[in-house]
């Protein structure tokens, strides 16, 4: 680089107790550049971001900003010199209006300002992030999650930052909102701002980043131009070895007798009753964006979401579970999309997590059998490549990928024949992701019927044997294996009726 980088960190080390989060890592970003920051969970991305944003000042190494040595004592100081960070978690106040949220910190506006004045001042920032159509006086809670993320960014832009850090901005978003975020990043870049983009999504990284910095085990690779790399070489850099094919080979599925027949199921959030069959040995994909109703369908089959009606036919019996307990008794397992909310007992040992759905199989007349529990949980831990020595540890100390494996692995204890998985790999690093795909495929090969709902377009294209797609609560259609291309799926889940006129073809990878 000829010009001096705007922000440069060299030889950064940071350890928490015995854990070395960063060892001599370096990072730099030039003016008007979009720098991708990638790495597996635990590679040190979050630590790096925290150090850059001034949240963490217990590091060693040099920190140059605009040619000067800096060591920010707090995020406020970093913000004043122009470094803003958008966290994964929203920090908006949902009961206030959009404009009030944007000027929450109160700078740049008089002490007493009318709502109309705030709205007028907020408008340009909203336009900047692509929310020109949103009324600034609208209640923030009434916006979609994606729009709220954009409002959060608008608030940061109101501080006029030089460097904007986006930490997994699209992790919780559907395809349309993600596209908005990417457009916004491009606009910021045109205006000469620098953006640090942290993401697990390879397609996004390649779409918007100029250069990419890879972190692995706390060490950094020299940044490389995105144009010189492809997904495989990037993954290889992240993992340190070649991944091979992440998605396991499909085997031909004979669809004779369905394992589960869903008839006229009508969950809240779905416009009309839907019916479909799942066959043993196949992975059925439910494709759809956030809010398309796929989560509600899985939840309804598992008894955790309210339904207006419908029946399931499973092993010759007709029923509709009204609570998860009934579904579990029938042998239907459901792994929800939010493992921290209802997938894991974070404060309890991993062993208790793995045996939670099947306490009766490890107990005699109400008394737990320690040996049975150890035997069955060790077996499941090994299947999911979780170190059995870690069984007594709290589930909360595991990394995201391992947590997801435990959340999914606990269902093996009931030997389910129907497994429903919502977002199998959200917030999971590439290595664990491949393992989860292998496990799901292995279960299907053993005869389980698996239904996967996902908003990740790569995953939904490459994992399932068959796809049913949804758009805003309407079943759009079914795609057989031959028709399953990203372009086809994207068209069905973003604009099946050709209303919006979004050019889809260019976005398919």
């Amino acid at each position: 680089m000829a010009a001096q980088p705007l922000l440069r960190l060299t030889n950064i080390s940071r350890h928490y107790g015995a854990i070395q989060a960063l060892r001599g890592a370096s990072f730099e970003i030039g003016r008007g550049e979009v720098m991708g920051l990638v790495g597996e969970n635990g590679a040190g991305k979050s630590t790096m971001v925290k150090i850059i944003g001034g949240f963490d000042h217990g590091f060693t190494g040099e920190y140059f900003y605009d040619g000067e040595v800096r060591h920010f004592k707090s995020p406020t100081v970093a913000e004043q010199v122009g470094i803003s960070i958008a966290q994964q978690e929203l920090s908006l106040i949902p009961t206030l209006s959009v404009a009030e949220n944007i000027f929450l910190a109160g700078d740049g506006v008089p002490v007493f300002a009318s709502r109309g004045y705030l709205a007028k001042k907020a408008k340009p920032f909203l336009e900047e992030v692509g929310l020109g159509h949103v009324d600034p006086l609208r209640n923030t809670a009434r916006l979609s999650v994606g729009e709220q993320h954009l409002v959060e960014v608008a608030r940061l832009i109101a501080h006029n930052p030089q460097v904007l850090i986006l930490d997994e901005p699209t992790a919780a978003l559907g395809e349309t909102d993600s596209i908005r975020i990417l457009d916004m990043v491009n606009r910021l870049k045109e205006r000469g701002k620098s953006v640090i983009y942290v993401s697990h999504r390879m397609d996004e990284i390649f779409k918007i980043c100029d250069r990419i910095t890879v972190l692995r085990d706390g060490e950094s690779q020299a940044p490389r131009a995105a144009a010189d790399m492809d997904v495989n070489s990037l993954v290889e850099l992240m993992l340190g070895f070649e991944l091979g094919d992440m998605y396991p080979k499909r085997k031909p599925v004979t669809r004779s007798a369905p394992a589960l027949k869903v008839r006229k199921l009508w969950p809240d959030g779905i416009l009309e009753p839907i019916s479909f069959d799942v066959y043993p040995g196949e992975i059925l994909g439910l494709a759809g964006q956030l809010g398309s109703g796929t989560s509600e369908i899985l939840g309804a089959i598992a008894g955790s979401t309210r339904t207006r009606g419908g029946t399931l036919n499973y092993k010759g019996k007709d029923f509709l579970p009204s609570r998860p307990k009934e579904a579990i008794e029938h042998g239907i397992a459901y792994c929800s999309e939010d493992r921290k909310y209802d997938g894991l007992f974070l404060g309890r040992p991993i062993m208790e997590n793995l045996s939670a759905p099947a306490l009766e199989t490890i107990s005699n007349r109400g008394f737990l059998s320690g040996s049975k529990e150890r035997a069955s949980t060790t077996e499941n831990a090994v299947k999911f490549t979780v170190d059995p020595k870690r069984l007594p540890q709290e589930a909360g100390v595991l990394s995201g990928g391992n947590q997801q494996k435990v959340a999914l692995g606990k269902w093996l204890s009931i030997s389910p024949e129907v497994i429903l998985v919502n977002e199998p790999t959200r917030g999971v690093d590439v290595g664990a992701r491949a393992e989860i795909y292998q496990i799901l495929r292995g279960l299907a090969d053993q005869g389980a019927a698996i239904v996967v709902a996902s908003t990740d377009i790569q995953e939904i294209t490459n994992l399932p044997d068959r796809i049913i797609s949804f758009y805003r609560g309407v079943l759009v259609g079914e795609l057989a294996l031959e028709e399953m291309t990203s372009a086809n799926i994207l068209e069905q889940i973003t604009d099946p009726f050709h209303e919006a006129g979004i050019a889809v073809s260019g976005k398919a990878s």
Partner: protein
Amino acid sequence: MTDATAPSGEALNIIQRITRDYSPLVIAMVSLFLIVFVAGAVLTDDFLTWFNVKTIIRDAALVGIMAIGLTFVTLSGNFFLLSMKEIAALSIICFATLMGAEWNQWGSPGADPTTYSLAMTFLVAFAATMVIATIAGALQGALIGLGGNPIVVTLGAAGLFFGIGSWWSDNLVVSYRRPHGAEWLGTGSFIGDIPNITVAFVIIAIVAELTLRYTTFGRQVYLVGANRAAGRATGHENFGMAIKCCIIASLCAAFVAVAFSGQVSSAHVNYFSSEFGSSGDMTIMVIAIVMVGGNSIMGGYGSTLRTSLAAVFISSIDNMMVLNGFNSGARVLAVGLMIVFSIVVFALVRRGSRSVE
């Protein structure tokens, strides 16, 4: 990946296991408590006498049994029953009324009561008290299980139970004659000079701990308490759990009421508001014990063993202060300090332990 490189495996001595399982803060706090305790014990005359030790455990027994029952509610994530003393008040009125009731005297009129007639009177009164406590617990548990806020539900229930108790007894002292069938529990001792109530406390503490550790029900208590949503998703619902735990707590309160009534041969709705512990209020005292034991207010973490030890600990500190001539204000202050201290320490520890990826 913030996995601590904790030594896992077999050959660990006790100190290594303690440093692995507990954070330095907790170890420091427990050590501090122990040092205070030992220093106090050495410096206080007459503290380490057999008589005094018996007194301490005996004092701890009544509040301790109630606290063990309440621990189930807290561990299952249903906060506290703020109606503990009112359940006990209703129970003691019920028990004493039936003990004195004309129709419940089983011997021939005029003659001296036989062991059989005393036992029958006691059993009928005891059974009725337990039935009432079960209903009281189930009612609160059902309301909490349906989604009622535990504070509001149990405050309301407290008024209800106290009202019934005081209406029933006309707000008078209900007394019954000695000899009666509850003396063995109130003041008797079968094993040497160890009071039976102390033995009951020890037995209940052991049974409760074993239940939590080794039964399916105990595991469910922890799981539901640790994460209610995940509990529901894995087939363990809070509705049944709240009812069961509230019944356990109510039964413990009723048992304490029976034992106390046995001591004094009488009952009054205010017995548990004024005569107990240093703070003078049974509910507060019981909650204090659960908190000092380091049980998580949010549920899912803790044990009845900790609760039992906390009961004995608070009781000994109280006893030590009495022997050293502190007035009741200072003793309330001490209990308050212990609660604040342990809540802060455990809150800090919990915040550190759940790492985010």
